[in-house]
């Protein structure tokens, strides 16, 4: 029945329920009953209205790169694929704004912008650089190393179009750089993981490509030196685009060739006006040497581009190499990255776990990857123990810990969104008011809402 009713809206060619094909849409071991491919926002609206009436749950789907995020779906009826909404709606060089439909990949948007006029770019470099879609990136509040300079999605989105759980087609924000016209609904939608609406299009600010960008890899032998170096940089008036700390395991996964006494690398990307990039490269190299760097390397041109691409795509590398791999993200005070790296390493060793660590040092974020290849069963207790421990440590530093992907066996035993926060009741009330029937992505967002 679900099939035939939805088929009336999207047409025979744009709906599937064949189990063989549904397998591509597995989430935490569960399969949807149908997948629909609406052609436009009106069709999404009609499908949602129907779902609301029939009490079917709906999961929006871009490229499926965030399928591991969130709790295990409570009920999983229908996937709405955004793959047919893949067009550019507006591109205005004179206003620096770009509107793309939700199913378009960021990669395609960037290619288009790079080819216009003097060359432009959206200031985001999130993981899954080839496949991640605009809608998925916004829904998951996904970002990459360059957020230190440019901010995250919340800082660069001017407007969002979405379909509310009652089927209403809603426009939040617009295309102007400043906008205080009614509540900033876009902020609610960013990072809401499809729990409040299905994003149909996104308007981004963009910028001209920098005159120059370059990378320094500062290799250090201790975390004390790493801390001195990064905090010195943070408190100077230099403004690099990215500051990332990698541990030895992460460097190994990236096939970086490092000297024996090199234990950590701080990778810095600096970009912008040529003279200021040159000056920063010089100053940062000196600061590195002042912090007892074992070696300072510089990457230019293609080496530079490839380095950041593989660093951004690290979660993809882990997912491909480690069938039982786990990705976590902790947030905390920006003065604590080296301290957090140390805690992770020490406790992981104690618990017999191997972890690759990449800290977005300037933003107070640490991505930790537990590299499990063959099995998770025998590690489960240690993992739960370790992750609860690490959540507490992040909370002590004003943050939290979120699991970005993990095998179901672990998800069943742990809160993937970390410790409940002060404002959770408001989060719950918003969900209840906006999606009273609970049809959008139930079970996956914070607190299982």
């Amino acid at each position, binding site marked *: 029945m679900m099939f035939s009713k939805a088929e009336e809206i999207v047409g025979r060619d744009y709906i599937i329920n064949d189990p063989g094909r549904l397998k591509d849409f597995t989430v935490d071991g569960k399969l949807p009953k149908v997948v629909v491919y609406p052609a436009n926002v009106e069709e999404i609206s009609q499908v949602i209205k129907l779902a609301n009436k029939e009490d079917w749950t709906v999961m929006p789907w871009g490229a499926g790169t965030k399928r591991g995020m969130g709790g295990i779906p409570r009920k999983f009826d229908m996937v709405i694929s955004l793959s047919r909404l893949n067009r550019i709606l507006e591109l*205005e060089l*004179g*206003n*620096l704004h770009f509107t793309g439909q939700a199913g378009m990949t960021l990669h395609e948007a960037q290619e288009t912008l790079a080819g216009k006029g*003097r060359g432009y770019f959206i200031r985001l470099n999130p993981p899954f650089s080839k496949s991640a879609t605009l809608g998925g990136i916004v829904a998951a509040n996904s970002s990459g190393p360059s957020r230190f300079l440019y*901010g*995250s999605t*919340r800082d660069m989105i001017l407007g969002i179009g979405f379909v*509310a759980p009652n089927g*209403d*087609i*809603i*426009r939040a924000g*617009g295309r*102007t*750089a*400043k*906008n*205080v*016209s*009614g*509540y*900033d*609904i876009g*902020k*609610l939608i960013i*990072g*809401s993981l499809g729990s*409040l609406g299905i994003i149909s299009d996104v308007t981004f600010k963009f910028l001209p*490509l920098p005159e120059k960008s370059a990378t320094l890899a500062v290799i250090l032998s201790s975390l004390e030196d790493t801390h001195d170096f990064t905090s010195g940089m*943070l*408190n*100077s*008036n230099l*403004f690099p685009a990215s500051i990332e700390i990698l541990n030895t395991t992460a460097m190994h996964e990236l096939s970086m060739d490092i000297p024996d006494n090199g234990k950590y690398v701080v990778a810095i990307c600096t970009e*912008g*006006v040529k*003279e*200021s990039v*040159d000056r920063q490269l010089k100053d940062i190299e000196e600061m590195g040497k002042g912090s007892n760097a074992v070696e300072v390397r510089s990457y230019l041109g293609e080496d530079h581009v490839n380095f950041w691409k593989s660093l951004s795509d690290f979660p993809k590398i882990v997912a491909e190499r480690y069938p039982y791999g786990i990705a976590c993200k902790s*947030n*905390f005070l*920006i*003065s604590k990255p080296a301290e957090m790296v140390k805690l992770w390493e020490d406790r992981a060793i104690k618990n017999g776990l191997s972890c690759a660590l990449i800290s977005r040092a300037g*933003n107070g*974020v640490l991505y930790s990857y537990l590299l499990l290849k063959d099995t998770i069963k025998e590690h489960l207790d240690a993992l739960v123990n370790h992750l609860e421990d690490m959540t507490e440590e992040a909370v002590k530093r004003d*943050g*939290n810990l*979120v699991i970005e992907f993990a095998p179901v066996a672990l998800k069943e035993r742990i809160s993937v*969104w970390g410790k409940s*926060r*002060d*404002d959770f*009741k*408001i*989060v719950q*009330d918003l969900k209840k*008011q*906006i999606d009273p029937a609970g049809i959008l992505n139930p079970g996956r967002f*914070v607190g299982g809402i």
Partner: protein
Amino acid sequence: MEKENMISALKEIIKDERYVLSSDVDLLLYGYDASLYRGKPDVIVLPNTTAEVSEIMQFAYREKIPVVARGSGTNLTGGSIPGKGGIVIHFSRMDRVIEIDIENQRAIVEPGIFTLDFKNRLAPYGFVYQPDPASESVSTMGGNFAENSGGPLCFKYGVTTNHMLGAEVVLYNGEVTWVGGKALDNPGYDLTGLLVGSEGTLAIATKLLVRIMPAPEARKTLLAIFDTLKDAANTVSDIIEDGIIPATLEMLDKLTIEAVEASVHAGYPLDAEAVLLIELDGLKDGMERLADRIIKLCKQNKVRDVKAAKNEDERALLWAGRKGAFGAVARLETSYLCNDGTVPRNKLPEVLEKVVAVGKRYNLRIANVFHAGDGNLHPLVLFDDRNKADLEKVKLVGSEILKICAEAGGTISGEHGIGTEKIKEMGLIFSDEDISFKRKVKMVFDPEEIINPGKILPEAA
């Protein structure tokens, strides 16, 4: 509730009679803001702590009394007027800096502190809080939070919301909670992002957590003088398309220049049709080359002259003209309406022409001083507020300008909010469905509609 009982109940909470005001003069003074709208509260209360604010809200919720939180009342759209009477909570006593955490680049302040006072407290550390509304010497951080204030530096650094990371808020029923925090990306909905710019209609902030950053190493300030408004507007578009990101790109037109020169003597030439105030900031390296590129673009658009500030005094003088512009224009006529329509930057030249035409058609003088880099217009429509017909006329002019902005793909407020003034214009940019979605948000935060009621959203049909 009887007014007398309300007053005595609040005196119970505050314990100090001096901070509960209800004289006729007080009711008049707290009934207005910088807009054309007026209201009248029943009582004004000046709490000293979050706990007191919480008790006030518990009381208001129990008795269903409207509450309006107020900073300095510089709001330009009637957002801070008590349109439905009730209690005005004035935050002037809660003006403390709670914490300056240099190591983590965060600060926590109370809402009543003047924005500039806070910045002056940061300066000795070599740190800045970037948002810089022109009214910052008197506007409060709480007001900036409520309005998502902008300012000349937004072009490069974004608006208030890009620098607000959390807040302690008192909810409709008096409950106190924190949203956001010192760390980024806390799990859950971005409630801080939602509350910033909600014009004090969802919750009452009692502490604000902001991002602070090291001050830029160098600045370069230019004043470009033009013989036509259009040349100035085209220069703005050219600078943006050329890929230069100045911190500031501000425009003042002839009438504004005249007013500024009569009051602050900033050295703007009286016979110019428009000036652009342009400032670059960041590392000193490469700055001169960028400045040269800007000057070249100005020349391509027939600039008459470009002056560069040679020292901090000259810079301060150029800025005094911009910062003092609203005050200066206020001397030209008994009153003005400050419009805040915002358009895509490339639409500026055509929209400006239309705005000028509207003024001519209604025979009202319009001074333009605005954030050109952001497409944020501020036509100041001059009128005599003793003349009833003019007051009606000016409202029509305001509404027409907003319509022009909406039709150009823009919006009806860049930084001043909707408040009381633009409720009926919400329909220019939002559908009934959009508005009903916003109303659901309001219902979550304020089910009894007691927090700054009657603002932003049109009444439900």
